[in-house]
Structure formats: structure tokens, C-alpha cells
């Protein structure tokens, strides 16, 4: 039966192949939606670990999280150094790392921070940052590059770079007067950390200070590394206090602040994006359905030409049930082949686009074995193919009963 079905399909190579391709592409799409969702979520979840709270100026939690950790979007407000110092000095806080954003090097984000960032920032499974070359910056006008940033800028320890104001690729004001020396390159982490350039807060102040001296009234009276910062990453001594502290910072008296717990905010973000995900899912499911209907059309159209074939099979003793099974087998073979081809296509696409996606978005799509959810989707496609095949199979069954051995064409 299997051999018969295979040979019969091979006899109609071209139309069958086109059907397989159509279904395969739709299956790849269906799987891609799931895979992108899962890996983006995993990547995001892997990016911050060990940071209990993030505090920044009043605004949306999502914006604060995306800007401070993922370097997506920008922050318009700042929080004062005084507030940071006050928060950092609290008893519950184990460590506090200030970060200041808003500058870039050839489109890559510059993160101005302290050496606490290197010490306390953790990703994936509580993994600390490590240096691939050189050392963490110790003085003004020194920079450490993320692995990807080093590659993209083609800079290494000993080279120098210039910081531009603003986050665009082409900036109007490049601070050429302040060449920054690269003193270290970080080990690759597979997170947005790889894409950033790290400098001290003072470096950024100096770079801006020069500019602002031209414009007037900026004085370095206090011994602050910075006047204001974009956000602060906090580690707590007692983790369960996070909720209480978050509430306190959200109602901070001195200035309006927003505090968030990274994991929770991410979950809220996914919830918001759920609608889009469902829409994409629905659309790709429809595309699969269209592919399967294409197969159905081909099977139904071929039935008319195959009436003699059916009569021959009847003559050698095949019952109507056998013909029914033959058609179902053909359809299931087509869907199975198409589903596997779709999976292959997905891996091929992933493999070929991996590099581009990583440099563009910092998200590393790993070529892992299909997940349970993906197997489910593939299974559903095959089941749908099977169910649809019942239609032509039923027609063949009826036809063989009415035709008997005499085909009236």
C-alpha cells in the first residue's frame, strides 16, 4: 500500500512537489512564529538575572526596562544623583549600579557606569561578565567593548574611539576632541551586553562638559561622578523585600521615580504582546490551511483521471476500503513530507539568518531540537492533512462503488 501510494505520487511529481513546497513553507512559517517567540523570551529572560530592582525616572516600566537593559528605545528623563545616592545607601540594598545612556559609537549604545556594573551585572544563570582581553576601565576616557561591539567597530585593546551624542548611527555632534582608549573587551554573552560600549560616568560628563562649557553655566562644584543618571540597577540583601521597596521607590518623595522587578515587567510585556502573537499564529495557521486545501484540490482533481486506475485495482481484488486507504495514505505522506521539509526549511533559514539577526538585534537564535510546542504544531498539521484527505478518499470510495469495473468516462 505504502509502495503503491509512493509510486502513484511520484507519477505526479510536479504537482505533488509544488504542494509539498507550499505546505512546507507554511509549516516553516507556523514554526517560526513559535520559535521566534520562545527564543526572544528566553533571550530576554537570560539577559537580566541577579538584578532585583531597576529604578529610573518616572515613566513606563516597559520603557525603563527596555532602555536600561536591552538598549531598545531611549529615555527622555533622568534621575538625580542625589536620589541615587539616597537609594544606594539604604540598609536593604546590597549593591547599586548607576547607568547613564543616550550616547553612541557608530550606532552602538554607550553605557556609562561604574566598575560595579562589571562586578554585579549577571546574565543567564547568574553568570558574571568576564573579560576576553584587557581590563575593566579604571580611569577617565577609557572604554570596554562588548564582544559584538568590538567585532563591529573592529577595535581592540589599544585602539581609540569617539563618542557621539545621541543614539543614531550618524550623529551631528561627534566629540572628536575626546578620543577614548579601548582598555578591554568582554567575553561573548549572547545578550545585548555584547553590543554596548562601556565607559565611566566621568568620561561621559567630561565629553558633555566640554560641550556645555561652550553653552554656559555648568560647574563641577560637587564631587559627583555625574549630575544625573538614566537608571540604577539594584541588588537586595533580602530578595523578598523587592515588592515593598518597589512600592516605596514608586512613591519616592524627592522626585518622581519608577521602580520595577525585571522578571515581572518582562512577563507583563509578553502579556501585552500576546495579542500580536496570537494574530501571527492565526495567520500562519490560515496559511497552512491554504496549503492543505491546495493538496485537497490536487487530490480531488486527480480522482477523475484516476478512475481507470481505481477500476484496475478493483479488478485485482482491492475493495473500496483499500482505495479509501490508498488516498488517505497519499495525503498523509504528502503532509508528512511537507512538515519535515518545513522543519528543515526553518533550520536552514535560522542557520543562514542567525548572524544577521544577532548583529541587528542582539538576539541569538540557537539551532536547538524542536520543542514540545513545535512538535505539537507539526502534529496538528499532519492531523489536519489526514482529516482533509477523508474528503477525496470518501469520493474515491463512492466512485469505485458506482463505477464498478466499467468506467463510464
Amino acid at each position, binding site marked *: 500500500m505504502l509502495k503503491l501510494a509512493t509510486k502513484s505520487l511520484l507519477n505526479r511529481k510536479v504537482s505533488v512537489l509544488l504542494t509539498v513546497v507550499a505546505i512546507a513553507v507554511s509549516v516553516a512559517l507556523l514554526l517560526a512564529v513559535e520559535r521566534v517567540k520562545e527564543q526572544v523570551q528566553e533571550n530576554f529572560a537570560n539577559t537580566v538575572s541577579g538584578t532585583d530592582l531597576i529604578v529610573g525616572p518616572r515613566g513606563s516600566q516597559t520603557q525603563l526596562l527596555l532602555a536600561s537593559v536591552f538598549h531598545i528605545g531611549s529615555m527622555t528623563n533622568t534621575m538625580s544623583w542625589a536620589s541615587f545616592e539616597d537609594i544606594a545607601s539604604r540598609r536593604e540594598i546590597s549593591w547599586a549600579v548607576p547607568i547613564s545612556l543616550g550616547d553612541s559609537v557608530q550606532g552602538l549604545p554607550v553605557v556609562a557606569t561604574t566598575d560595579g556594573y562589571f562586578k554585579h551585572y549577571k546574565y543567564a544563570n547568574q553568570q558574571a561578565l568576564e573579560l576576553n582581553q584587557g581590563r575593566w576601565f579604571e580611569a577617565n576616557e577609557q572604554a570596554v567593548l562588548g564582544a559584538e561591539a568590538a567585532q563591529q567597530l573592529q577595535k581592540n585593546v589599544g585602539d581609540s574611539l569617539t563618542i557621539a551624542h545621541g543614539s543614531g548611527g550618524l550623529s551631528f555632534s561627534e566629540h572628536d576632541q575626546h578620543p577614548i582608549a579601548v582598555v578591554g573587551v568582554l567575553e561573548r554573552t549572547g545578550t545585548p551586553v555584547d553590543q554596548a560600549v562601556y565607559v565611566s560616568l566621568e568620561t561621559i560628563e567630561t565629553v558633555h562638559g566640554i560641550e556645555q562649557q561652550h553653552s554656559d553655566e555648568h560647574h563641577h562644584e560637587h564631587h559627583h561622578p555625574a549630575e544625573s543618571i538614566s537608571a540604577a540597577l539594584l541588588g537586595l540583601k533580602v530578595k523578598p523585600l523587592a515588592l515593598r521597596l518597589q512600592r516605596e521607590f514608586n512613591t519616592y518623595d524627592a522626585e518622581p521615580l519608577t521602580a520595577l522587578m525585571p522578571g515581572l515587567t518582562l512577563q507583563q510585556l509578553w502579556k501585552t504582546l500576546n495579542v500580536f502573537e496570537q494574530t501571527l499564529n492565526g495567520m500562519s495557521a490560515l496559511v497552512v490551511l491554504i496549503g492543505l486545501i491546495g493538496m485537497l484540490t490536487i487530490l480531488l482533481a486527480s480522482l477523475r483521471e484516476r478512475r*481507470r486506475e481505481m*477500476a484496475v485495482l478493483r479488478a485485482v481484488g482491492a475493495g473500496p476500503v483499500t482505495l479509501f486507504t490508498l488516498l488517505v495514505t497519499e495525503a498523509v505522506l504528502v503532509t508528512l513530507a511537507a512538515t519535515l521539509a518545513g522543519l528543515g526549511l526553518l533550520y536552514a533559514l535560522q542557520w543562514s539568518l542567525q548572524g544577521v539577526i544577532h548583529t541587528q538585534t542582539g538576539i541569538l537564535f540557537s539551532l536547538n531540537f524542536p520543542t514540545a510546542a513545535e512538535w505539537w504544531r507539526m502534529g496538528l498539521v499532519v492531523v489536519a492533512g489526514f482529516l482533509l484527505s477523508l474528503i477525496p478518499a470518501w469520493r474515491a470510495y463512492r466512485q469505485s462503488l458506482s463505477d464498478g469495473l466499467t468506467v463510464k468516462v
Partner: protein
Amino acid sequence: MSTAAVELTDVKFSWPAQRPTLDIPHWQVEQAGTMLLRGASGSGKSTLLSLLAGVNTPQQGKIELLGTDLARLSARNRDKFRADHIGYIFQQFNLLPYLSALDNVLLGVQFSKQRRQRLRDPAEKTANDYLTRLGLSQRQQHQPAAELSVGQQQRVAAARALIGAPELLIADEPTSALDADRRDRFINLLLELSNANGTTVIFVTHDASLAKQFQFCTELSDINRVTSSLAEADDA
């Protein structure tokens, strides 16, 4: 148990919503006999063959094949009975175009364990022997059936109908597409091979000139009470 391979008693049949096509009070074919059944086109020949093959069942009467009353078998068992005991050759388009000649012959035993068991040699070898005797070269045997000439296709069909030595061979005008010379040779081969197996042959044709090659000859109009002119309108 009768000695007849085929016996029809009071068989009446009409296609749904049509006037009767067949009304045969009695007709029989001897075991191992060769029977030519002659009838004008549209006299109900194909209908009678469908009944004999158990694809359709008469509204009335009894059809006994090899002592088995077909009406007593379920549709499924009639299919099995056909697979086990009947070889069938169509007028044309006998083969699955995408299978090789050899695989088409093997179809003859694919649906019947009984016919497989009757083979003395492995099925492939038997099929190969038949086709060689019927004049197909090794290369032609492995060609897709669609690439063979009509005459070759009919010979492949004969091999399929005869492999596994079924008791009954039904041929529905298998020579209508062949010229006189090829037709006679085809019939001789067919009869020779079925004789070796002890197979009963029912050969249907509109051509009375073939009668001399067969032991028996029946005019369908002699056994069918429905007059030909009436049936003509119904049987395409």
C-alpha cells in the same frame, strides 16, 4: 457441488432507475472450459461481467462461481473472492501507468494470499517467466507500463490475470485494439497459459469469427430475455 465453474439461475439485473439490462434464466460454463460469449455492443456484456466479478449484485437470482453463491458473500468477501479466484482483463487501460510491467503483474497476487501460495516460485520470478513467454524483453519488463505499446500492455494484463493460477479468467474484449494477426496470437497464448493452469476462460467479444478457437460459444441474445434493442439504450 456442480461441475460448472459458473452457473447463473434466474438472474435479473437493472442499473438504478433504469429498465432491466439482464434477465438470464440459466447459463453455465464448464470447469476448465473455454467459453466465447458473443454479443453486440450494448447488449449488456459488461454488465454481466460486473456481476460475474462480484462488483455488482443482481436484484434477483443466483450466481454460483466454483460452487460459491456470490449473493451469500458480503461486499468485502466478494472482493476477496475476486482477488483469490478471478483474473480479469479489460478492453484497454489495464495497467497502472506508474508501475513497471513487472509490478503490474505482481498486482495480481498482491491482494490474495491464496494466489501467492499457489506460486511455485517467488512471485517476481513467476511474473518474469510469464512476461518472457508473452514476448516482453527484460528491459520492457522494467519500463513503466505507460511506455509500452497497446499490444504489450494487453499481454502484461494477461500475465497479471493468470499469475497465481486463478480458477476463472474473465476477458472483456481484450483484443479489440489489436489487429487480426496479433489478436489470434494473443488468444492462442492466453488459452495455452490458462489451459496449463486448468483455468476456466470466459472471453467476451462482439467478433463471432473468433469462435473457432474456443470450446464453447454463447450468443448473449440467446440467453438474455431482455431484447438487445432495449438494453442498448442503457448499456453504454
